[in-house]
Each structure stands twice: as C-alpha cells, then as structure tokens.
C-alpha cells in the first residue's frame, strides 16, 4: 500500500495569455490534512479542477488514489469544488440521490450523511430554499457519500458564520482522525495553521513551498539590537557562535541566530567583550503572517 494518495507532476495550465499554473509538482501523503494556501486567483481552484477532470491541463500528470482509472478514483473521492453545485428545484435528499447513483453508493447512506452535516430535518426542502451555509454543508455532505478515502475541499468555510466555520473545522479534523486524507484549499493562513498538517503555498500559479506545516511555516526567531555604532556592531556579529545572518532595519540590526547556541545573555556578553555596548536587545518572535509574506513576496 502506497503512502501517497495524490501525486502531481509538472502540472501547467493557461487561460489564453494568463498562466494559471506553472509546473506544479508535489505529493499528498496518506492521512494528512493538506492545505493549499494562496491568495484569491493564485490557481488553487484551477489545480483542484484539473485533478477532478473538470479542467484540462496543458501539460503534466496526476495520479489520484494510485489508480490508473481516474473516473474510478473520483468515485472514491469526495469533492467540493468552488461552490455547492446542486439542482435548485430538487430537495436535499433527491440531490444526494443523484450523487449516490453516480458514485455507485447505496441510498441508505444519504440519511446518515445528512445527519452528520446537520441537515436531516431539512432533507425534503428544496436546495433553492437553503442559506449559503446550509448549501455549503450539503456539499460537504455530498462529499462524504461513499465513505471516501480522500476529500478535496475547496474553501470549505467560505460564506459560513463563525459558528459554522468552527463546526466545519471540527468536522474536517474528525474526518482526518478517522484515517481519511483531506486536501483543502484556503486563502486563510490562520485556517491552514489551525487545521492542516501539511501545506503547499501557491501564488500566481507557482508553487513557492510545500511540506509539513512545521517545516514550511516554521517561524524563525529574530533579535533586534542597537548600539551607538551600528557599523561596529555589524562588524563583530558574524563572529558570534551560531550566527545566521544580519539585516539592517530602521536604525537597528536584526540578527538571525541559533538561540540554542547563543542565547540573549551570551550575545550581550559577546558584544561587551568585543567593546560594543548594547543599548537595545529584544527577542522578536516572527509572526506567521510575516513568514507567509516572506514566502509570497
């Protein structure tokens, strides 16, 4: 049994002059909650559209659930792409009946799934009478039909109120805890950080980083230093054990250093011994946003 549920190789796609995806390659490990993070219009939906066969790639390949027949793989994958797509004049139940029939799933599964997304009481209501949040939940319900190994959720909390968002996030974590893999696109950094185990960051169709959330969004600590003579200070700092690099910023020096080797006390002592008296020594925790902006700029 392979440990990869989705493998994407060199995927490219353009809409006329607009290059929507450029040579994207990454793999989604089994059991992960894989976030695809990127601003609106970065190519997230285009990529998910290609692996669900609604869009045609210009070049590149993908393998879904290690299956050579992509149609069969899609039946075993639950997908919510962009918006909930249902027949407005049919009830929630009848809409799911169509999905179940296509997936080859028993209609006995419909009620439990509706119950799980909290729509069982409204199963006979027409889809057109649903609120945005209910539509979104019905789409997630449809994705759950057939007990899929992989869920592809495109902006699953879009349009939901704070309660709804919390519910969906709990639901997603629960699904992963049951051993399913979840691939979700989001433009919300905070959402990816709270929910995901892995992340791929795309911007303007390019993959900027991918890997576990810890690796990709690891926030490096930075130390801000000031002294009367910044040139002299900058001159001695590279000699510090565990030194990373230096930046100048608004009359202070930002030092990237391995704090395990040289702690704040050691830095202060080192500078004093080299004849530099510090007037300012502060540890700055880099925020996740700063890290994200650093990657995307």
């Amino acid at each position, binding site marked *: 049994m392979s440990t990869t549920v989705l493998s994407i190789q060199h995927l490219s796609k353009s809409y006329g002059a607009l290059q929507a995806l450029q040579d994207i390659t990454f793999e989604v490990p089994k059991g992960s909650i894989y976030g695809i993070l990127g601003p609106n219009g970065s190519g997230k939906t285009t990529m998910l559209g290609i692996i669900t066969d609604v869009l045609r790639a210009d070049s590149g390949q993908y393998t879904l659930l290690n299956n050579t027949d992509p*149609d069969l793989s899609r039946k075993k994958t639950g997908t919510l792409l962009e918006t909930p*797509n249902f027949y407005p004049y049919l009830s929630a139940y009848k809409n799911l009946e169509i999905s179940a029939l296509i*997936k080859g799933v028993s209609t006995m599964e419909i009620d439990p799934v509706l119950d799980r997304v909290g729509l069982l009481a409204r199963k006979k209501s027409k889809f057109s009478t649903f609120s945005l949040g209910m539509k979104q939940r019905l789409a997630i319900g449809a994705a759950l039909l057939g007990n899929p190994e992989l869920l592809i959720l495109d902006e699953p909390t879009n349009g939901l109120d704070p309660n709804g968002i919390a519910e969906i996030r709990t639901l997603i974590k629960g699904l992963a805890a049951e051993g399913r893999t979840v691939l979700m696109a989001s433009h919300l950094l905070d959402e990816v950080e709270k929910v995901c185990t892995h992340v791929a960051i795309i911007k303007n169709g390019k993959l900027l980083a991918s890997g576990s959330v810890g690796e990709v969004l690891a926030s490096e600590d930075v130390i801000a230093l000031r002294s009367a003579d910044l040139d002299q200070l900058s001159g001695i700092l590279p000699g510090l054990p565990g030194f990373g690099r230096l930046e100048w910023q608004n009359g202070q020096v930002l030092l990237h250093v391995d704090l395990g080797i040289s702690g704040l006390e050691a830095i202060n002592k080192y500078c004093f011994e080299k004849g530099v008296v510090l007037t300012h020594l502060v540890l700055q925790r880099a925020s996740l946003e700063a890290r994200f902006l650093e990657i995307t700029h």
Partner: protein
Amino acid sequence: MKNLSIEWLKLKNYRTFWWLIGLFVLCLIGSNYITYQLKVVTSEQSRGGLDLLMGNPFRFPDVWQAVTYVSSYVLFLPGFLMVILITNEYSFKTHRQNVIDGMRRTEFVMTKICMAVILSIISTIIVVLITIVTGLTAGSSFSLEGSVYVLYFLLQALTYTLGGLLLGTLLKKSGLSIAIYLIYIGFIKNLISFLLDRYAGGIGSYMPVKSSDELIPMPFFKQVTRTLITPPDGTWLLIMTILFIVAFYWIIVKRFKTQDL
C-alpha cells in the same frame, strides 16, 4: 441505463420540463386539428370546388405528409427543451458535479444525446397516432403508402433536438442560447436560405435545419405549387440532413470531451 435513470431523477421533478412536454403535445394536436377543421370548413363553403385545387391532404395516403408537415412547425419546442436541459446543467454547474462525482464526460454527453433521440422518437410516435386518427376521421381507410414521411419527420425531429443540444453545448449560457436558437429557427435560417437561393445558385435548401424542413414539402395545393416552384432534389436533401445530424452529434461529443467544464 444507469445514466438514463439519473437523467430521469433530474427530470421527474422538473416542472418546466413537464410544462413544455404538455404544451408540445397540445400544440401538435391543436395545430393539426385547426388545419383539418379549416380544410373541412373551406371545402364545405366552396361546395367541393376547392378540393379540385387542394386535393385531399387529410385522407390516406396523403395524410402522412399533411400531418407530418403541419406538426413539423411545432418541432422547435423539443429543440428548445434540449437547449434548456443542457444550459441548466451549465448554469447550476451540475455538469461539473456529475463529472466530479465520477461520471465519465462521454457518459454525461451521451446521456443528453440519448435524451434528444428519445424526445424525437416520442414526438414521432405522437405524430403517427395523430396521423392515424386524422386519416380515419377524414373517412379514408388506413394505408402505409406515403408513410416514409414519418421517417423524414423523425430526421427533422433529430435535427431540431440535436441542434438545440449543440447550441447549448457551444454557448453554455441559457439566455443567449435560447435567443439564438429561436432567432435561427424563426428568421436567420430562412434569410440565409433565401439569399443563397438568390445569389448562390439555389443551394439555400441544403443549409443546416433548412434541409430537414424541406424533406416534407407543403402538402396543400400540390397542383399549383408544382407548376410555380422547382422543388429541391429529394436525395440531396436526405443526404444533407443525415450529414448535418452526424456533424451535430460529432461536434457535441468532441466539444464536451475537450472543453473546460
């Protein structure tokens, strides 16, 4: 079969579909009834004098041509229905969802083509029933002579339903598709045909949809029209009609298989 039952789930509770089907059947019966009554009334008023000119279009064997000819004017309705059925999928984005859920693109498009064929066959069956009832009501005895017009009617029905499906597949937007469909059927088709007849050596009758229209010539005043107009070549009309049907089919399938949904 599985895909047709999925299609049935979509249609069963779709009110517009049943309204249009009902209207279509009503128009088929109504248009033939009115034309028949008109013939009866004018014949009575002219004390049979008009019959010399007009012939007996509602008696067997001529009734096959008369009823299929009159009914063909209502064929825009099943075509219109096909435009709605396909553009609905595009506007609800359910064509995407069907594929996302695991339906093959070819399965999806072939189901829609099957729907066009089924609608055409149902239309033809209704027309056959109307023909038989009308022919018997007119006091003639049943005859299969001239029933080739039923085949022509089926080809015409296929042209309209597949034409509607093609237009919807190409344009995707329901309002635009419906407008262009109706304008083409009601106006542009005849304009192009007229211009081609006039300036391109009489090939106007062999244009898309028009060629299938002309398969069934006007059954009334045959004696008069025959002396005034040279009818287009029947074999060529048949060949062109079948060619257009095959072309419509091929473009629909090709387009749906390769387009971004």
